[in-house]
């Protein structure tokens, strides 16, 4: 029963993707966007944040407190 159910679900996805026309160009567009975001922007533009600069929560908190209290 469960096997048949899972087979139906997988067929829904497989056939759905196989028969796509417009969807293929949309998926391509999404893929390009994700590559730009995670392959370029994330690596080169958004390469530094609190998590990459500091290892512990204490260090992060200290950095923020320094910014909150600086004259």
């Amino acid at each position: 029963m469960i096997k048949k159910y899972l087979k139906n679900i997988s067929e829904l996805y497989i056939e759905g993707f196989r028969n796509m026309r417009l969807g293929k160009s949309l998926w391509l567009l999404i893929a390009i966007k994700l590559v730009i975001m995670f392959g370029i922007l994330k690596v080169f533009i958004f390469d530094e944040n609190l998590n990459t600069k500091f290892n512990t929560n204490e260090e992060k908190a200290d950095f923020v407190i320094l910014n909150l209290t600086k004259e």
Partner: protein
Amino acid sequence: MSELASVDWSRAQFALTAIYHFLFVPLTLGLSFIIAIMESIYVKTGNEQWKHITKFWLKLFAINFAIGVATGIIMEFEFGTNWANYSWFVGDIFGAPLAIEGLLAFFLESTFFAVMFFGWDKVSKKFHLISTWLVAIGSNLSALWILIANGWMQYPIGMKFNPDTARMEMQNFFEVALSPVGIIKFLHTVTSGYVISALFVIGISAWFILKGRHIIMAKKSMIVAASFGLVTSLFLLFSGDESGFQVTRTQPMKLAAMEGLYEGDSRQGLVMFGVLKPDKKHGDGQGSFMFDIEIPYLLSLIGKRDINAFIPGIDDLVFGNEKRNIESVSSKMAKGKIAVDALRTYQEAKKTGDKEAMAKAQNLLETNMNFLGYGYLEKPTDAVPPVALTFYSFRIMVMLGTYFIALFFVVMYLCMANNIESFKKLLWICVWTIPLGYIAAEAGWIVAEVGRQPWAIQDLMTVGVGATNLGSVNVKISFTLFAILFTALLIAEIKIMLKQIKIGFESHA
């Protein structure tokens, strides 16, 4: 100087991302419900024409969804890099709503989207219909959590500041989740999305009628969209009124900027239209407008639910008004500076292990915490948002919103009279109204976000303090890259969408 430029570039970058993101989201929110209504009619009547109609709009929905699906991720990157202080400060409050949003979006969308697109003739009609409704409800629930987080920034409640971690910690989840500001923000924002979607469907249907193609299906689409648009635009009016009430209560400076109101008064009227004096100075006692048309008493009625109520103006809020028991910004700045100093003293005492000094500083901090953000202002007028931008954006939003109600009413009436195709000019108006829906929504976003400047979190954190100290060159480069990337994506979307629209209804059967 360069630091200021960096903040401004970060602001511009975030505004650009948010504006582009919000070009895609509203259509997703509303079109999903319009499609669900169309499919419900198909299931109820068994008329295959409604299936073609549903499939056509579903494809346009999919294109819009595919383009818009990832722009939000860039905003998350920006929180981490450009707004590190801010995102750390609010991390505990935003964590829960955004995690719920992520889970909901992931499960509902990945599961039922597939059924909605691939499931025709694979699952029962009823199951397909339920999936379509669940996608619509799921996308709107995602928006709920995002807007609750935004509502908290406008009206922070249900939390306590922890001076050890520099984080706002959630004390009461329900107070945050059920914040009246967050709820009304959600209702007003999603409803604006419904109106945009209704205008989108009406505009494209009008184009088909003008071209003499698929007239019956276009008219059927139009009547669903016009009914949906009329109901939701009336609700938009109601939620706008409630927003006005909440803004008066929680962000009186924003309300004063929305109205260009410098000197408050009782029985205050609402400016329907006006031109602000460009050389208006704080406290000069001169009127704000070169000319204006006002509806008497209306602002007092909206803001305080009392036509005799006093509505404070910008100068009342900046300089204070003892008679009305309004505290000046200078006084709040003094309390804010005490809070900032207390936080500094707490940290110094913590380093030396002086527990008594820590307790004293913490007590001082807690007493003045509600004014923390004022401690970062340099002068009292820094608490005033850009008045002209807020004032004109608000008027654009309201005037367009009123026009939409009239348009939906006329279109619905003519559709029911079954002679809309005779009104060619009206049909062209419908086509050209599509972008106006987006303009109204973006204007609303400007009112909400520019109107609350200088605050990243109302009264607690200024935008300048929330920003990371990045080099302005870095932000300029990313701003330019985004502008190019987003514009290219927008052009791609419009091209793909226009291509599908030209194909028409029949090929989607």
